[in-house]
Every structure is written in structure tokens, then in C-alpha cells.
């Protein structure tokens, strides 16, 4: 075997090579400095997280016992955003609902991305019949519209936080699995993977230490979009009646509860939570788009 002559690093990037732009962390940092929308998105995600988790410490409300004397109050001195049909203070409920909705969405994104990435990397790395079988399983999963499955599940199970996370993640991992498998197909032919192989590195080491870290850009971008999607699907599930038992607050539950009073003009039960959902989803999308622009090596080449 011939020893390759030392090459000038500046000449290296060609074909499918990655242009070195510093570590992933640095790239992400630079993205946020350059992209105004991403800053806006990140800023809002931080604000909304503080609002949901720190807010209740400052703004105390009772979100457990109903108060039937104070139902459907318009915004005023009693509560800055009024109250809902159970007498819960809306502002406080937005915080409590944010906690649950964000917790579930983050958990779904984390589980789905981890499982999906590993699954896709394994399928792509080993290839052959294992890949064929594993990817057909993904195809089958993607061919069942998930809402139909959820409604079926809702007639069988009683929803809990863990169950919701499991169900949502159980369907959300299919996307990253397919994505990372495609990425792995190109990564596994790279020299550094072959070098590890030549040095006797096992498949486990290659997948966990080399393929996954090199696909981290795609993985992080996908996780960002997963959070946004989870917030939306969660809201949809609540509307379809697959909701957490009372008195747990969620944004989706508040929105679908509020919409029944749309005709009565109780706007404060609909629009604040709707705007919050939209802003949260938009923010995560802004962050994801910006990250994709900076981490996607295919875009760098253009």
C-alpha cells in the first residue's frame, strides 16, 4: 500500500470532504452570532423556558383546585389574562402548561433522536440484509398516519406523561432513523472509518465514536425540528381528546378548551395560548433552519 504524500490542508476539501470550520460548538456559536432570526428564536426559547419554570415561583397561582366562583373572568385586576371555565388563572396556567408541554416535547425529541440516530447508524453501517430489514420496518411505520394510531391508542390506554412521551417518540424516531442511515452510508466509506477498522476497532466503537459524532450536525438540526413538531402534535392530541387527566395543564388542552368558548367572545382563553404555541414552534424552526445552514456540509460547498 502506498503512503499518501503529505497534502496541504488548504487543498484537502474536495469531493465529499468536510471543510473544517472549527468544532461543532464553535459553528453553532457562530451561527447564532450571524443569524438574527436564530437569535430571536433562541431568545424566545430561553424566555419561554424561564416563563414556564421560574415564572410560577414569582407569580403564585392555584392550578389544582377549581374555583367555580371565578370562571371565565375577563382580564382585569383579578388576573392579568383572566380565568378559564374552571376558574384557573390563565397566566399561571400558561406557565404550568408550558412546563408540561416543554418537558414532554424535549423528552420526545431527546428519545426519538437518540434511538433514531443509533438505529439509522447501525442499519447504514452494517448494510446488507440487516439494513434492508431495518429500513422496511421504518417504511412500515411511516406508512401509518400517526394520528390514526393515537386515536386507536386513546381508546385503549389512559394517557400519562410517560405514555405520551413513549407514543410520540415511538413514532418520531422514524424520521431521524432514515436521515442518519443516509448520512452513515457516506460516512462509513471515509478514510478515518477505514483506519479504525484497520486498527481493529469493532463496529460498536466505529458507530458510537466515529459515525454518530460526525453526523452530529444532522442529528442536532433534526432534534430542534423534533421539539417543534412535538409541541404541535401534542396540541393536536389534546384537541382530539387524548389529554392528560385534570388538573394537569397543557397548552394544547388550554387551547382546545378555550376554543369551545370562541363563540362567546372569550378571546383570552384562546389567543394568548395560541400565540405562545405559534411563537414556540416558529422559534424552534428558526433555530433549526439556522443550524442547518451552518452545519450542513453540503451547503458549505456551494
Amino acid at each position, binding site marked *: 500500500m502506498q503512503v499518501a504524500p503529505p497534502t496541504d490542508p488548504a487543498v484537502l476539501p474536495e469531493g465529499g470532504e468536510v471543510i473544517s470550520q472549527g468544532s461543532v460548538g464553535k459553528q453553532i456559536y457562530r451561527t447564532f452570532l450571524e443569524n438574527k432570526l436564530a437569535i430571536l428564536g433562541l431568545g424566545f426559547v430561553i424566555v419561554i423556558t424561564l416563563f414556564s419554570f421560574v415564572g410560577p415561583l414569582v407569580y403564585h397561582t392555584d392550578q389544582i383546585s377549581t374555583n367555580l366562583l371565578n370562571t371565565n373572568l375577563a382580564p382585569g385586576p383579578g388576573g392579568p389574562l383572566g380565568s378559564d371555565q374552571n376558574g384557573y388563572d390563565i397566566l399561571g396556567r400558561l406557565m404550568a402548561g408550558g412546563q408540561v408541554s416543554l418537558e414532554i416535547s424535549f423528552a420526545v425529541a431527546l428519545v426519538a433522536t437518540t434511538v433514531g440516530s443509533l438505529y439509522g447508524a447501525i442499519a447504514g453501517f452494517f448494510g446488507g440484509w440487516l439494513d434492508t430489514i431495518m429500513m422496511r420496518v421504518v417504511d412500515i411505520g411511516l406508512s*401509518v*398516519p400517526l*394520528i*390514526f394510531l393515537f386515536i386507536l391508542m386513546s381508546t385503549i390506554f389512559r394517557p400519562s406523561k410517560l405514555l405520551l412521551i413513549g407514543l410520540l417518540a415511538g413514532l418520531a424516531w422514524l424520521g431521524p432513523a432514515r436521515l442518519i442511515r443516509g448520512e452513515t452510508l457516506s460516512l462509513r466509506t471515509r478514510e478515518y472509518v477505514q483506519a479504525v477498522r484497520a486498527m481493529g476497532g469493532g463496529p460498536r466503537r466505529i458507530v458510537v465514536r466515529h459515525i454518530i459524532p460526525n453526523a452530529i450536525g444532522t442529528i442536532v438540526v433534526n432534534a430542534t425540528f423534533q421539539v417543534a413538531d412535538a409541541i404541535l402534535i401534542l*396540541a393536536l392530541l389534546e384537541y382530539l381528546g387524548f389529554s392528560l387527566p385534570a388538573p394537569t395543564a397543557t397548552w394544547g388542552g388550554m387551547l382546545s378548551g378555550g376554543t369551545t368558548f370562541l*363563540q362567546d367572545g372569550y378571546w383570552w382563553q384562546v389567543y394568548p395560548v*395560541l400565540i405562545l404555541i*405559534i411563537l414556540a*414552534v*416558529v422559534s424552534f424552526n428558526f433555530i433549526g433552519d439556522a443550524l442547518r445552514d451552518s452545519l450542513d456540509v453540503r451547503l458549505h460547498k456551494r
Partner: protein
Amino acid sequence: MIGFIVRRIGQAIIVLLGLTLLVFVMEHLLPGNIARAIIGPRATGPEIAAFNRANDLDRSVLYQYAHYLNQLIHGNLGFSYTLNRSVWNVLKAEVPRDLLLVGTSIALAVLIAVPVGVSQAVKRNGLVDYAATSVSFLLYSMPSFALGLILIQVFAIQFAILPPEAPQSAGVLGLLAHPSGFVLPVATLTLSVYALFSRYMRSSAIDALAQDYIRTARAKGLPEHLVLWRHLVRNSLVPIATLVGLSLPAVFTFGLVVEQLFNFPGVGLQYFTSATQTDYPTMLGITLLVGVATVAGSLLADLAYAALDPRVRFS
């Protein structure tokens, strides 16, 4: 090319088999058992045993799956005990109305997304581009039921110019006879689907705009509107074929919500009704139907892509 088609169809058949297996497994995972779901919670042991024997439920699981597949091939999707009709009959009545709703909405969404996407690509970072991007982001980030409810609030309650409910006629022609009731459901579904398409449409038009054939067309002195129409729009339509095929699951999900929201008589609404009555045969039949439609959609999309784009060569 022929090899690709054969392989792709083979893949679709495998996925379909997996789908039937999934539905079959779900049917057997149902709480209690099938007999209890059908003859009721007060059924006695001997009654359940008799039911199981009569319906081959005491045979091996493998036999039951083979039996189920055999029934499917003969068009027997099971029997709805709450509607007292075969599932096939139920679906036969619902599907044409769904095709009308979903078909109209997809067509409208494409008709809007293509010209908007092209004009966004041509004047990138212009006023139109920012406006269209903002609108599609807003639509995309809104739960689809909220979008429908806002449309109802504005057009049916505030201004009272459109009915808040879909026409309840049995046939497709009956639906068309009351076009005003059809407007809001179609508008909601169209906007949701448009939000899905528009983002891809813009980037695919931008990609197409950077191609050599656009430069060639401009260089030979073709007027700009002909460059756009003959070269850009036509070539941007190719990814739309794939996009429509791949977004079918999402479209069906939106469709389900729209049907529930506007009381639109279709498969989705039937699914809800069946869910409240724990009518599992109907629910599983519909799940299977939607799955088959999805698989067929992505198969057609791949074939259309290969047929439309002569550059695509499959090895």
C-alpha cells in the same frame, strides 16, 4: 428502469404485508379480547368460547393471520358490529367524498405554492419573499384545528357569509350541490397543505434557478417570462410530484382534523365515531386503507419522478 420499477413494487408489497401484520397485531392487542369487544362486557365464558370457535379465534395465531390475509385479498375488511354493515361497504360510501376534499385541497395547494414559490425564488429576499415566508411559517406553526376554528370564527360567526358545517349529503354530487359549505373545509385543508409545500417549493425553485439550462435559456435571448414558465416552473414541478406523495400521511392527518371540525362526512369522521363506539373492525379497516393509500402514493411519486426527470438513472 424496468428493474427499478419491479424492485420498487416489490418493496411496496413487503411494506404492505408489514402493515397488515401491524394492523393484525393491534387487533389482537385490544383490551380484553375481540369476543368481548363485539358481544359485550357481560358475555359469559361459554358464550365467548362459542364465539371464538365460530370465528376461528381459537386457532393458532399463524392460522389466523393467514386467514386474515386471505379475507383481505377477497376484499373482506371485516364487519362493523355497531353499524351492522361490512367495513368495505362503509368505506365505499365514504371514500369518494374524501377524494373530493383531499384532491381539491392538494390541487389548490399546488396551484398556489408553485407560482408563489417561483416568484419568491426570482426576487429572493424581496418583499414578496418575506411576506410569503412569514405566512407559510405562521400557517405551519399553528395547530390545524386552531386554523379551522379561526376561519369559522371569522367567516361563519363574525361575518356570517359561509356555513360553519360541511354539507351533509350522502353522495359526491350532493356535496357539490352546496358549494358554500364546502369552502371552509377546503380552505382549511388547503392552507395546511400549502404550508407543507411552500417551504420546499421555494428552495426547489431556487435550486432550479441556479441550473445551467436557465442560463442557457437566458443567454439565447428568451424573454424572461418564457424562461420562467417553460424552464423554471416545469422543472420545479418534478419535486412537487415526490412531495405530494410523501406528504400524504400529513395530509390525511390534517384531513381527519378538518372532517372532525366541520362535521364533514368522510373516513376521518367515521374514524372518530368508531373510536367513541370502540368499533375496532372499522377503525382497523380505515387504518389499513390510509396505510395502503400512503404506500401507493409514495410508490407513484417515485415512479412519476423517474418518468418526469430524464436525468434520473437508477442502477
